[in-house]
């Protein structure tokens, strides 16, 4: 099997928008709040079908989050949708105080996350968001891998009583296999099993890890691929279990190597005295290279081939 034999789905962002429409159709309390971002959030049809359920604040991310917190406190089920780069930086104090500290169950939806905006450059990249939100109490961080996880995450967020940050890319994603078709925030999903090396990945990089696993399989190396869709709270049991089962661990994320999934896993492993060969693959601490999303990821070894080579080097 190759990654190409998997069926191709839509962009996770499109699945988010479609799922939100389904939910909004059943519940008029569900609102989409946007900062002139309904187009990039694929919420044009939502706005047309539910004009009473879309709140537009213009290009004002701080106000977007503050208003969303106010709406939530008055009983509305709000999805605040804005490019992840602005939502997680410009509006950070509102996320910290109005949403997380005030415990308002707003779902913050960071769109075109990671380096999805490619050559638009660092202003538009969000390779810091997971690190920032991990350090804030009372906000869950969920980075779905494929269409299935995207849909399930949106449904779970709509029922949640706590603040959540959802992070979506805009590239069409393959529909990944998984051992069990279940989704629960805080519980990792196993995509495939293997005892030689494990890839613990999140978001769009899970498909790349799976591609690497297929390349390794051709050489008789059994790789486990885990979708750690919830980076906070991290499924630490799964990390420990994986370290005990596999000879090496590679974490993969479309995020800075500082403060993201990789360091979260490393922290657990060190404190549990599980000293397996370990490598964090992500965006390094440097001026990010110019290119499309795929070119940037390839440049830093966040690709099927790059991860294959990292695994070979580690084993």
């Amino acid at each position, binding site marked *: 099997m190759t990654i190409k034999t998997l069926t191709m789905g839509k962009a996770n962002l499109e699945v988010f928008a479609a799922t939100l429409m389904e939910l909004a159709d059943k519940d008029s309390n569900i609102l989409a709040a946007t900062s002139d971002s309904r187009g990039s959030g694929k919420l044009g049809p939502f706005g047309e079908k539910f004009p009473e359920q879309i709140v537009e604040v213009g290009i004002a991310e701080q106000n977007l989050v*503050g*208003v969303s917190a106010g709406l939530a406190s008055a009983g509305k089920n709000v999805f605040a949708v804005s490019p992840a780069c602005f939502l997680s930086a410009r509006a950070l104090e509102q996320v910290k105080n*109005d949403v997380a500290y005030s415990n308002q169950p707003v779902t913050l939806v960071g769109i075109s996350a990671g380096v999805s905006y490619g050559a638009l450059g660092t202003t538009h990249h969000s390779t810091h968001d997971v690190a920032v939100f991990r350090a804030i109490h009372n906000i869950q961080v969920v980075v779905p891998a494929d269409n299935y996880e995207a849909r399930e995450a949106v449904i779970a967020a709509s029922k949640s009583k706590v603040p959540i940050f959802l992070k979506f890319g805009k590239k069409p994603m393959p529909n990944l296999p998984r051992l069990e078709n279940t989704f629960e925030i805080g519980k990792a999903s196993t995509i495939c099993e293997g005892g030689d090396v494990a890839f613990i990945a999140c978001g769009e990089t899970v498909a790349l890890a799976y591609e690497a696993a297929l390349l390794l399989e051709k050489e008789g190396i059994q790789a486990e691929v885990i979708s750690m869709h919830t980076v906070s709270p991290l499924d630490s049991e799964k990390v420990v279990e994986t370290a005990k089962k596999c000879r090496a661990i590679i974490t993969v994320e479309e995020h800075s190597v500082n403060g993201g999934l990789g360091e979260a896993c490393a922290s657990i492993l060190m404190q549990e005295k599980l000293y397996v060969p370990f490598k964090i693959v992500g965006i390094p601490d440097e001026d990010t290279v110019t290119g499309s999303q795929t070119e940037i990821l390839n440049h830093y070894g966040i690709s099927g081939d790059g991860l294959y080579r990292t695994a070979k080097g580690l084993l």
Partner: protein
Amino acid sequence: MYRGETILSGGIRKENSLAMSQYTDLELQLKSVKYRKALLKYIKLANAGHTGGDLSCTDILNVLYNDVLGVTPENFAIRHRNRFVQSKGHSVEALYVVLADKGFFPESDLETMCQYQSKYVGHPTRKVKGIEFNTGALGHGLSIAAGIALAAKMDKTENYVFTLLGDGELAEGSNYEAAMMAAHYKLDNLVAILDHNTLQITGRNREVCSPYPIDEKFKAFGWEVVSVDGNSIPELRKVFHELPAEKSKPTLIIANTVKGKGVSYMEDEKKWHHGVPSDEQYKQAMDELDALEKKLVKHSIVN
């Protein structure tokens, strides 16, 4: 409430959805003296607090909670209650004292304020019953209040949302994002009250980084702007009970106040922004407030 409901227990129905108490102006003036004495007591005990701003906004909080909001511990869970978000969170001591008086918690709890493991933090927190939002970082309350007001419009309820802003706080740009959006959505159930004491920690607003003209700025954003003496109980009562100041527009009430109001040596002095009185100063403050109380009572008897 929304016409016909009973959220405003003890209140009298008026043209708008706001409570109107049976308190006389004198009774409310006496409450202000009581609140000022209490907040100074707990600031002294905690050896911390934002004294000047507490004293400038005491009358505003008094009128809001005793004559306007109609919120009580019993009705606080009602979704479309009238709400108050204290954007200038540093004046929390005044808010705590008023909430205690309204029965949200025993006033003696405030003896723990700012102490190790106390839930009475130095800025508003929802750990304390009666507090709507965790505030203290400036420039947040107006957006939050606009969101609540928008929800009320969506649900076609008639509750009002109030927020109290500091004048130094007006330098925070997020206020203007919220001001623009509130006018766009015609949130005439949104009322921002500016505690216009003209001082911030560094000095006179006008000299630090001038926010003026405040009225023209907000009018340009599409707000209705009214000015009152923010330390006058009758003036405050009147302005609140004439809401909305204009249909389809949010209202800014510029409440002209005196920082440190009620204590002679604190009045209009920037050093009392977060000053804690010495034992001697504390006694003088209490003596002055006691004298004011006696004067108010005597005046009422004479009249």
